[in-house]
């Protein structure tokens, strides 16, 4: 039986503050009742100002809105433009989140369906001490509820601890913690995963090769996640560690506890992000106050970042973008750059050659991104993986949960476009996922099986 030591508590902290979904900046909700004629004149002016504003536009918007010091006229015009741009990039960024979520789920489902290790019961985590092997249903339900309470309390404690550390600026501690947890994920869990996959397909690999493979994978992963790296490689690594974490949960959480935990954690996510004193909300707000991005190891960012000048040789435009560029090349952390969340992403990438961009909107369209916490990836994949593992070999259930989660994510992003502040990504998706899992498994499956046995089509 494998139990996890206490220093793997760091594994829990991926579960807590990673569960938030936020837009890159937070301008206020534009009021569409503003007169359109007034906005015309304002827009002409705003265009002039925005072209001068350069790639720091979103920064200014974010900073300006938060400090409330922006020019009202500019604000109205920008709001109207941004609202349309919000919707336009909203659809695009929904897809930019669909793709990684889908990939993570595909990796988890493929592993669950092929590698039998992750569906075998080999003990439980110490966070879920109560066993579910009891004969009576009531006892089993009670045990799973108790397991959930313990797990959620651990998560709450870890989150509050992290928020306190962040508030009191113990950055080194946090970074050490994050590095330790990603070390464990990238090396130990990958080693176990690779071992099990090789066992399943009966492929022999000698230790030197294994060492080289794991070492390279892990070292590049650490660099990409915690320092600089190509955006897509970083995204790939984040997807992989989310999938690994989800597989660990699927293996070590007992049946009923897993479902109750999924439900409870979406309620916790809702409260932690939306309540004024919720730990995740405080984390996000503190990060925004200090104009720092949240730890890169915990958030998946879909941003594409072009920190380059524009087609129009505007010296004022060049200036700030040069700053961002220099910040990227210096490789310093978020503390000194214009600290737009996406400018952080520029630092994590090797410098890209500058490319003339024909309009400010295009620049901004590519700059804005939506961020999704890794905990959301993990719990989506846990739900779909559990559906694949335990739904009596039925693929319809997996498919139904997959569609339900995607629709939940879409709705959440729609709400994000409306409210423009950090929102919990778990509740809607997990609710839909749970509803569809239980109803598909118990209602649709017998119907479809009966239809298939008679070869009827509806």
């Amino acid at each position, binding site marked *: 039986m494998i139990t996890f030591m206490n220093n793997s508590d760091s594994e829990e902290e991926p579960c807590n503050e990673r569960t938030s979904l936020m837009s890159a900046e937070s301008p206020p909700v534009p009021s569409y009742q503003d007169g359109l004629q007034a906005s015309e004149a304002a827009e002409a002016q705003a265009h002039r100002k925005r072209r001068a504003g350069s790639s720091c536009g979103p920064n200014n918007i974010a900073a300006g809105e938060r400090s409330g010091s922006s020019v009202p006229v500019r604000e109205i015009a920008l709001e109207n433009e941004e609202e*349309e741009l919000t919707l336009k990039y909203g659809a695009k960024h929904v897809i930019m989140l*669909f793709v990684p979520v889908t990939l993570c789920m595909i990796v988890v489902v493929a592993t669950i369906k092929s590698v039998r290790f992750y569906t075998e019961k080999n003990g439980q985590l110490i966070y879920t001490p109560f066993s579910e092997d009891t004969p009576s249903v009531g006892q089993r339900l009670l045990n799973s509820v108790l397991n959930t309470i313990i797990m959620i309390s651990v998560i709450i404690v870890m989150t509050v601890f992290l928020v306190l550390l962040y508030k009191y600026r113990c950055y080194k501690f946090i970074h050490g913690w994050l590095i330790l947890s990603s070390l464990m994920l990238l090396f130990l869990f990958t080693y176990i995963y690779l071992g099990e996959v090789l066992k399943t397909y009966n492929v022999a690999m000698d230790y030197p090769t294994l060492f080289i493979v794991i070492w390279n994978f892990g070292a590049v992963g650490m660099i990409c996640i915690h320092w600089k790296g190509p955006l897509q490689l970083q995204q790939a690594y984040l997807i992989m560690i989310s999938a690994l974490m989800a597989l660990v949960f699927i293996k070590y959480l007992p049946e009923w506890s897993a479902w109750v935990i999924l439900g409870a954690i979406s309620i916790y996510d809702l409260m932690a992000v939306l309540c004024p004193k919720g730990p995740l909300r405080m984390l996000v707000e503190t990060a925004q106050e200090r104009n720092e991005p949240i730890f890169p190891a915990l958030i998946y960012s879909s941003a594409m970042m072009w920190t380059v000048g524009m087609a129009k040789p505007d010296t004022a435009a060049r200036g700030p973008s040069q700053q961002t560029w220099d910040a990227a090349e210096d490789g310093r952390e978020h503390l000194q750059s214009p600290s737009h969340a996406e400018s952080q992403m520029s630092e994590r990438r090797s410098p890209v050659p500058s490319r003339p961009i024909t*309009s400010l909107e295009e620049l901004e369209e590519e700059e804005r991104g939506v961020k999704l916490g890794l905990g959301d990836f993990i719990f989506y994949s846990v739900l779909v993986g559990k559906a694949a593992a335990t739904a009596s070999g039925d693929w319809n259930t997996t498919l139904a949960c997959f569609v*339900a989660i995607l629709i939940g994510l879409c709705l959440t992003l729609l709400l994000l476009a409306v409210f423009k502040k950090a929102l919990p990504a778990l509740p809607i998706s997990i609710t839909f996922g749970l509803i569809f899992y239980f109803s598909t498994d118990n209602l649709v499956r017998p119907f479809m099986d009966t239809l298939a046995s008679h*070869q009827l089509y509806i």
Partner: protein
Amino acid sequence: MTLAVFFGCTFIAFGPAFGLFLFTIARDPLRIIILIAGAFFWLVSLLLSSLIWFIAVKASDPQDERLQKGLLIFGVMFSVLLQEAFRFLYYKLLRKAIEGLVALSEDGCSPISIQQMAYVAGVGFGLMSGAFSMINLLADALGPGTVGIHGDSQLYFLTSAFMTMVLIFLHTFWGILFFHGCEHRRWWEIAAVVIMHLTVSGSSFCNPLYVGSLVPSYLLMAAAAVWAYLLSGDLHRTCGASCSVYGVEPAPSQDPEALQDVPVPIHPYPPLSSWRQDRPSPSLQYLFPGLGDPGQPWRGRRWSAVAARPVWLRLAHSNAPLGSRKTSQFWGTRLCWPCRELSPS
């Protein structure tokens, strides 16, 4: 069964749909979202119909074969009707979405038309329906076994694959027909779609006499295809023949720092009456004053912003020089919704 059966059946059932997805839907994020939402609506309809069937079965005697068969027939028919009801609900939702998109867009035109949404919604319904019919079969096809060893038909997988393919296509065409009927208040089109669906599902009761189910389904698919093409092709023909590009130029910007070097393409406005011939369409002169006169500056709302329109808007139109006449293409056109909110000034 063999890997060949698996791949063969997968490609038969999902190949055309995958091609449709790849070439027409995958590029546009909005269409992907509409596709997934369509799949979701189909799923919800299936859920509700399974619930009804499940309750009916649980409330009845499991030993009575005839009753169970009758309940199954009832379940199938009810499911078909519920699917069409949810298609109607989805149509309502998409209409609202178009109004929202129009309200949020810069120049009062939705980036996607109801016809395109109808097509994508149909593909969404079809893909989900096909996936739910076929995926379990495909998973079983990978495992060991012999088809028809107990005297059933040996062509089970193959015919299932063909039936799935025809269902996906049918859902696509039904989507187009249904939405067109809803748009024009032609109830007979909607009724025709429902009757076709019931016929196809009913014909599957002939299985394993596959000639009784596959042949009518394919014939109905061909008929639906022609009908749907005529409905949308007709639009194309009228649009292409009579559409003239209203050569509007933006008001010259007074802004010295405006991006003067960016060429502003023509925004073609095809006649609004394409699908709304039976409804009095608002006069274009009312909406776009000074319109009939190419070269005259257009004083529509927010035209000063056109110089800085987002790239997606400019890329939606091909490189037509200013003032040229150019027929609009079906997929590239941004059909204008009658913008009732626009003020004439």
